[in-house]
C-alpha cells in the first residue's frame, strides 16, 4: 500500500520506511514554536520537570505576538517570561518587538520551515506550514515543554481526506474562500483528527500566500494538519528565503484516503462565514444588507503582502464608510515595509483606515479593536466564535481581504464588485 505525503513525512521522522494510519509513533521534531500565551505555561512545565537545557536552541522559535507590543502589565509579565527564557537558553529564533510578526506568517517568511519538515507549535494555527509541504500541527503547552526537553513528540498517524479543486477560480475568489467553502461543506469537525490534503488545478494556480490561508484554517475543520504538495512555486518561495535542506514528498498513486471530495470551482463565489462558527458559510450574493461596525484585515490567515495588495486595490481613491472602523494589520515587519514601499499604507490611511504594527490583537479579542455589545465585525481572521473579538453579544463574520475592504467602504457586507463598479 502506498503512502500519503503526510505518512511519508511522519515515517521519515520516526526512522521507519512505512507508517499506517492509527499507528502510534515517536517522531523527531524540526521546529518547536510557542507564543506569549502558550510559552509561559510551557516554560513553567519545562522547569518543573527538572530540565535545565533545551534539546536544541536552534530548533525552538519563540514569538510574542498575541499581546505584544505589551498590552498591559499582565501581558508584559508574560512576554518577559518568554524573553528571559530565550536569553537564558540562548534561543536563536526569539523575535523581539521590532522584528516580531504574527508567528505563522513570520516562520515561513524567515525560511525557518521548509518542505518535508515536522513542526509542532503551541498554537492551533501551526497547521499553516502544510502549504510548504511540511507536516505541522498545533499542540498545547505541556507537549511544547516536552518537545523542548527531548526534541520528540508522540503522534497517532492520521488518516487523510483528499480535496480536489477542479477548474478556474471566479473573480474575487481566493484561497480563503476555498477553505471557507470546504469547512462549510464538511463542518467544523468534518476532518477531526485527520490530515486534509489539498490538490487540483485551482490549488496549483494559487500563490504561496493564498495557499497559506488554506492550510491555516485546516484546524477549523478539526484537522490535525493540512498539506499541499510542493511545486515550483513552493521551491522558489523556499529557496529565496532559506538555506535549510528540504525534502519534497508526494503522495503515492495508490495511497489510501479515508474520503475524497471533488469541488468545481466555477460554482464557488466569495464566501462569508456567519456567526458563530466557521462552517456557517454562504456565498456573498446571498448576503442581505448586514450593517457592520468594524472591519479587521490581517491575522495569520490573511495578513500577508498579497492580502494587503487585494485590500489596497479596493480602497484606492475610496473612503471608509463613516459608521465603520477599519483596522489593518500587516502580519510582519517585512509585509509592513513592503506596503510602505508600494504606497499601500498611504492608500489605507487616505481611505480612513488605521494601520497597526504586527499583532494577533483583535483576532482573539486581545486588544486593538475590541467589540462592544451588539456590534458586528467583518474580519479576514479565522474564528467567529461567541465573544471571540470582544463582548459575548458581539458578532464576527469572516471573509477574504477584498470583500472585507469593500464592506468597509459600503458600511455593510458587500462584494468587491459593488465598489469597483461604483468607481468606474
Amino acid at each position, binding site marked *: 500500500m502506498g503512502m500519503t505525503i503526510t505518512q511519508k513525512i511522519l515515517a521519515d521522522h520516526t526512522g521507519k520506511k512505512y507508517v499506517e494510519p492509527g499507528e502510534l509513533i515517536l517522531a523527531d521534531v524540526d521546529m518547536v514554536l510557542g507564543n506569549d500565551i502558550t510559552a509561559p505555561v510551557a516554560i513553567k512545565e519545562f522547569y518543573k520537570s527538572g530540565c535545565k537545557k533545551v534539546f536544541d536552541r536552534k530548533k525552538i522559535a519563540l514569538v510574542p505576538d498575541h499581546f505584544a507590543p505589551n498590552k498591559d502589565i499582565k501581558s508584559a509579565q508574560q512576554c518577559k517570561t518568554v524573553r528571559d527564557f530565550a536569553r537564558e537558553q540562548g534561543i536563536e529564533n526569539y523575535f523581539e518587538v521590532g522584528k516580531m510578526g504574527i508567528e505563522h506568517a513570520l516562520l515561513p517568511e524567515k525560511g525557518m520551515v521548509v518542505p518535508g519538515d515536522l513542526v509542532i507549535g503551541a498554537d492551533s494555527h501551526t497547521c499553516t506550514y502544510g502549504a510548504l509541504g511540511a507536516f505541522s500541527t498545533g499542540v498545547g503547552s505541556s507537549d511544547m515543554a516536552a518537545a523542548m526537553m527531548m526534541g520528540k513528540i508522540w503522534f*497517532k498517524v492520521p488518516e487523510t481526506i483528499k480535496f480536489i479543486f477542479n477548474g478556474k477560480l471566479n473573480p474575487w475568489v481566493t484561497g480563503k474562500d476555498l477553505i471557507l467553502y470546504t469547512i462549510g461543506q464538511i463542518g467544523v469537525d468534518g476532518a477531526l483528527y485527520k490530515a486534509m490534503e489539498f490538490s487540483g488545478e485551482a490549488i496549483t494556480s494559487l500563490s504561496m500566500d493564498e495557499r497559506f490561508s488554506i492550510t491555516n484554517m485546516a*484546524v477549523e475543520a478539526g484537522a490535525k494538519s493540512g498539506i499541499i504538495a510542493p511545486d515550483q512555486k513552493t521551491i522558489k518561495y523556499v529557496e529565496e528565503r532559506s538555506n535549510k535542506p528540504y525534502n519534497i514528498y508526494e503522495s503515492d498513486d495508490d495511497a489510501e484516503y479515508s474520503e475524497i471530495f471533488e469541488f468545481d470551482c466555477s460554482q464557488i463565489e466569495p464566501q462569508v462565514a456567519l456567526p458563530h462558527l466557521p462552517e456557517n458559510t454562504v456565498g456573498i450574493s446571498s448576503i442581505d444588507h448586514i450593517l457592520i461596525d468594524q472591519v479587521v484585515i490581517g491575522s495569520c490567515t490573511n495578513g500577508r503582502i498579497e492580502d494587503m495588495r487585494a485590500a489596497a486595490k479596493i480602497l484606492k481613491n475610496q473612503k471608509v464608510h463613516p459608521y465603520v472602523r477599519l483596522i489593518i494589520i500587516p502580519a510582519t515587519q517585512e509585509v509592513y515595509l513592503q506596503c510602505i514601499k508600494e504606497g499601500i499604507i498611504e492608500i489605507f490611511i487616505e481611505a480612513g483606515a488605521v494601520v497597526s504594527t504586527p499583532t494577533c490583537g483583535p483576532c482573539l479579542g486581545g486588544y486593538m479593536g475590541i467589540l462592544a455589545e451588539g456590534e458586528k465585525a467583518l474580519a479576514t481572521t479565522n474564528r467567529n466564535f461567541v465573544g471571540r473579538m470582544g463582548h459575548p453579544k458581539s458578532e464576527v463574520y469572516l471573509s477574504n481581504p477584498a470583500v472585507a475592504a469593500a464592506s468597509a467602504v459600503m458600511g455593510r457586507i458587500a462584494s468587491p464588485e459593488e465598489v469597483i463598479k461604483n468607481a468606474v
Partner: protein
Amino acid sequence: MKLKGKALKYGDNIDTDVIIPGKYTKTLNMKELADHVMEDLDPDFKNKLQNGDFLVAGHNFGCGSSREQAPLALKHAGVSCIIAESFARIFYRNAINIGLPLIECKIDEIKNGDILEYVVGSSKLHNLTTQKIIEVKPLPQIMTSILKEGGLVNYLKKYGCYKL
C-alpha cells in the same frame, strides 16, 4: 481513582474561547482562570458547579485554540472529568497532559443533574440516577499512563521519555 459528581450538560462545538476567553489567557494564576471559566457560554456556570462535577457535552468539545489554559481553567474550577461525544484533538491531548480525565461516549443517557460515577481508566461509566451503565471508548495506553501519573510532566519525570 473513583470520581463521583453531578452532570452539567451543554451542547456541541463548545470552543476554547467560551471555556476561557482570550482576554484572560495572559496569566499563570490558575484561580483567575477558574474564576472566568465558561462565563461567555453560561454566566451562572460557576454557581452551578460543585467540586467534583462532570462536564457533559456533545460533539467536538474544546475546538479552537490550543490554549492549555482551557482545560486548566476547568480543572481548577473543580470539574473532575469531561464527558463528550467527541473532542477536538488539541484539547484532548491537553486535558490528559494536565491530568484531567476525559470520557468519549454517547451522552443520550445522561441528563443535566444526574449523578455519575467513574473509575479512571475503566470502560464503563455509571449513571447512579438512572442506574444505567454507559460504555466508554478506551484511551490509548500512553494516555492512561499519563493520566495515572497526574499529567505529562510527572509522567516524563518517572519514565524519562515516552513509552508507546
